[in-house]
Structure formats: C-alpha cells, structure tokens
C-alpha cells in the first residue's frame, strides 16, 4: 500500500480525469455532428445566429431532460448527442475536484482533503444557485 502511495499523485489523477472528460466529451460532440451530417443537417438546415424572440431553435437544449428526450427519440436526435458531449465537458472540472477529495484523503493530506471538499461544495452550490436563477 505504501509503495502504491509513493508512486501515486493526485495531480496525475486530476490530469487523467480532465483529459478523459475532455476527450470523451469531444468524441460525443463529433459523433453527434457526424450523425447530423449523415442526416443531411448541414445541407437542409439554415443556422440561425440570432436568438429568436420566443422559444429556442433546434440545437439549443436548456435541460438535461431535453437532451435525454432527444437521445431516446427514434431516429435519435443527432444534436442531442453533441449536447450530451458539451454537458460532459462542462461537468468535467467538477468531477476532477470530486476525484481529488478521496485522493488527498488516501494520501493522508487532511488539509487539502478539506480544501478540495470545500471547493467541490462551493462549485455545486454556485451551479445550483446559478441554475435556479432561471
């Protein structure tokens, strides 16, 4: 166990989580765009660059439920796959901090276990507060 601890590094773990989250997120974004192209989306649709006065255009999801609905639909909604990738990308830093908490504890660094836990709690709190504003 102590030999494992001597080679383990919280930095490497956090780096791996960030890399894995980033790559998986981008893979889903690419997969969604690929499906969108295969369905002729790039040819058939016109991209609206201005926000409409009411409602949201295709490609804008405002909740995870909407994304999941798009994934359940048959045929699958390609942009929901990309949106899932974007969601994964956006939660990756939070997941990285969540992974750091037990990692610091396992390394016996109580001070940074607490600091990482406080950062995690603040991230969740501010995300919840921000999300509840709208």
């Amino acid at each position, binding site marked *: 166990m102590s030999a494992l601890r001597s080679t383990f590094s919280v930095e490497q773990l956090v*780096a791996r989580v960030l890399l894995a989250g980033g790559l998986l997120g981008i893979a889903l974004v690419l997969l969604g765009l690929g499906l969108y192209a295969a369905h002729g989306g790039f040819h058939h649709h016109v991209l609206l660059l201005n926000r409409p006065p009411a409602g949201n255009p295709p490609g804008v999801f405002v909740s995870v439920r909407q994304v999941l609905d798009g994934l359940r639909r048959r045929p699958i909604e390609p942009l929901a796959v990309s949106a899932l990738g974007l969601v994964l990308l956006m939660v990756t830093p939070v997941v990285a901090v969540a992974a750091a908490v037990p990692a610091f504890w396992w390394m016996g660094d109580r001070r940074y276990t607490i600091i990482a836990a406080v950062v995690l709690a603040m991230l969740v709190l501010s995300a919840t507060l921000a999300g509840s504003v709208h």
Partner: protein
Amino acid sequence: MSITVFSIAVLATSIGAGAVGAILGLGGGILLIPILTVFYGVDLHYAMGASIVSVIATSSGAAASYLRTGLSNLRLGLFLVIATITGALVGALLAGVVPVRVLELILGLALSYSAFTTVKQLRDELPESLPDHPLALRFDLGGSYHDLRLQREVAYRAQRVVHGFAAMFGAGLLSGMLGIGSGAFKVLAMDYLMRLPMKVSTATSNFMIGLTAAASASIYWSRGDIHTLIAAPVAIGVLVGAYLGTTLMARMRNTTVRKLFLPIVVYLALSMIVRGLGLHLP
C-alpha cells in the same frame, strides 16, 4: 453563410483562441466573443455561451497537460479558487447595488498600474528568491517543474499569500459583478503579487478558470445561450488549440509569455477605462 462554412471558420478561429488561452491562462472569451459577434454575426448571448464552453475546454485540455508536467500547481489552484468563487458569489449578490461604471474605472486604473509593473518585469525570467512565507509553508504553496527552455528544474514558493488571496477574491468579485472572465487578473495576482514564475501563473490560472466557469455554466445552459451548432466547433477547435498551446508554452521563456500577456492587460485596462467613462467608440 452555410452551416458547413460557418463551422469550419469557427473551428479554425477556435484553434487559435485555444492556443492563446492555454499559453496566457485566459479562457479565450476575450478573443472569441468579439470575433463571433463582429465577424460571424453571432448573437451576443450565443457567443457568451460558446465562450463559457471554450473556457472549460481550454482549461481541461491545458490543465491536463500542465498538471502532468508540474507547471500547473493543483494545491495552489484549489487554495486560491476558494477566494475566487467566494468573490464571485458575493459579486453576484452585489450586482446592481454598486455602480458598475465606478468599478470599471477603478479596475481600468488598477490594470493600467499592472501593465506598468508588467513592463518593469519584462526582463525577469524568474522571480528573485525571497524568505519563505509562513502561509506558503503551511499550505504547501510551492513546487517545482522541469523548464524545457532553461533545461533545468525550477523550484518556487508563493510570496505575499494574503495579498494574493485578497486579489483572487477581488477578481471573483469583479467577475460576479461585471460578468467578465477573470483569467488575466488571476495571472497578474500570481505573477506580480505572489511572485510565482510567469509560466506557473498562467498554467495554474488555466486550471482555475475551468472551475469558475463550470460553476456558472448552468446559468448559460438554462438560459438557452449554449447553441450546440455554435458551441460544438468552438469546443473541438479550442481543445486542439489548447494542446498546441501547452506544447508551445512549455518551450517558451517566462519573459516571452509575459511579453505576449502585456497587450492583453493594456487592452483590458483601456477598455475598462473607456467603459467606466461611459465613452462609446465606433
């Protein structure tokens, strides 16, 4: 503009923004938002939504690499981000209470002073060694990295920890009140106040900006500001750019990074003063 042409153009722009963001510790919003709105005609809300995705993608891509090479200091980043997020929460509560223009003017003047000090430090490759700060020892706010340019191990420890922590709180406060990213302020606080090597400052800022952006991403998402067809090419391009940026930055001198950073500080200082004075430039 067809979706295909738009996507390719945004992808190429985002590669550049990701590379610059990764080198300078910024989210890329300072570059992306004006380009998306002015050159591509994207709605400001969608541009801001794409920018928040860009910040997180730059941060994840760059920090993953910088944490492995020791340029980004995880403990320092976690310690300081407590001040930044607290500041952002307080700032969001104070928004609308404190006059924004006065704040912008104060911020512009503070940045002008920072630009002046950055000019004075332009030739300093590494900060002079000073006695260890007790809080830096207590919270283990130091480390070392192998500098590929200098071909040696560089050890460092944070100075003026209280000043740095207060500056990070201020950076968060301004972020919360003005709705601006604060990557540049984080870099300045670490470089100038805490006397950390410039490369450590920008690399650690890269890790921190991802956390603060993730905290506010849900507001953009629930508001409908994140358009998949705009944010997707941005995310892909920025991640590729961040990879290129980290490879480049590892081989740069600290003085080179500081020289590249200076125009950003000058631009931010001027734009804040102009906004604070209520001037409208064409």
